[in-house]
């Protein structure tokens, strides 16, 4: 009897450990986060428009009817990632998600010169090297230093009404996501 009680107590202790293990392993093993779903749908550096009708609803889309979004995957091992767009939209914002799908950094067009989208995401080592001599193509860029090696850049734009669809569509079709190897 005493041994059964001992077994149950040990089981409860084990249950606590399993509970905590599940909790911390879940984010890394989830298959529903944006990283897993985008990896399944598109190669790295491909800008994918997120919308209810695209890719069979495989990728989460903004639920706000006035926001549209596009995203690309990057790996800073290939060099800093340069995200650029032409044209002006009433409002844009950009987030960086890590490979667990968590939002680690965000900026809005308030931060950018003239409201133009021209952002470079890089790791601290690349920042050090670029500080030495600024490449000409980064002259106007906003630099984002991030600890995330692999991640997602997601750009959102505000569509006030249907008549803006053309302008926002051009903004997104001109949106590029390119690795720029340095030195």
């Amino acid at each position: 009897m005493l041994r059964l009680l001992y077994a149950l107590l040990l089981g409860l202790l084990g249950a606590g450990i399993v509970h905590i293990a599940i909790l911390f392993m879940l984010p890394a093993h989830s298959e529903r986060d944006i990283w897993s779903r985008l990896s399944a749908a598109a190669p790295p550096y491909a800008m994918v428009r997120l919308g209810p009708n695209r890719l069979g609803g495989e990728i989460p889309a903004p639920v706000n009817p006035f926001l549209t979004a596009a995203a690309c995957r990057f790996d800073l091992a290939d060099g800093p990632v340069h995200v650029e767009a032409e044209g002006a939209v009433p409002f844009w914002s950009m987030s960086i998600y890590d490979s667990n799908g968590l939002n680690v950094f965000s900026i809005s067009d308030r931060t950018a010169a003239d409201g133009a989208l021209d952002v470079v995401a890089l790791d601290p080592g690349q920042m050090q090297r670029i500080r030495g001599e600024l490449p000409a193509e980064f002259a106007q860029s906003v630099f984002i230093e991030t600890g995330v090696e692999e991640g997602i850049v997601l750009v959102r734009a505000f569509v006030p009404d249907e008549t803006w669809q053309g302008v926002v569509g051009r903004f997104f079709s001109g949106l590029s996501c390119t690795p720029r190897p340095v030195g």
Partner: protein
Amino acid sequence: MLKTVFLTLVTLAVAIGGGAASAWMILENVPPVGAVAAGPWTAFPDAGTPEADPYSRARFTREGGIPLGRSEGLVFTASRDSAERALRRACTYRIEGTIPAARLWTLHAADPSGMPLAPKGRRQAALHSGMILHREGVPFAITISPHPAPDNWLAVTGSGPMQLVFTLLDTPVSTGVSLGELAMPDILQVRCDA
């Protein structure tokens, strides 16, 4: 011998079964922590960020989604009016009061799962700050109703429960410290269709 095997099995069953069941129960049934309430509205500023607690983080990655970052904006939802009654699509509501500082805001009606309601003709169940009519000397108000209303009308379609989603874009609120004493507008029930 057989007794030892039995006891080992009991221990393992309690550990794995109990651990998995308790984790699942908490993620499914316990409401998330870290909420910021302002009147009838609730926001989760840390949802989907590395700052969130382990439970919120696990819940979030199970559901997927692309949360707004702190510099992008903040999303408030309400599923009850200011008198704590559940919001229904058959009812008419008025939104009155002050709106926190933001460059832009949007307000839309959604079903309980978060999908925006179907548009009424070409009219979406959504408004943004640029569409709002302000009258001199009259306080700002929005009417949320299945029936047409003058001034600022948010058209609701279908039947059953709904929630209202208020998104502040580029707002100092989400980055500032004053999240606790935030003033959000009230949701007042006007009448309900029988």
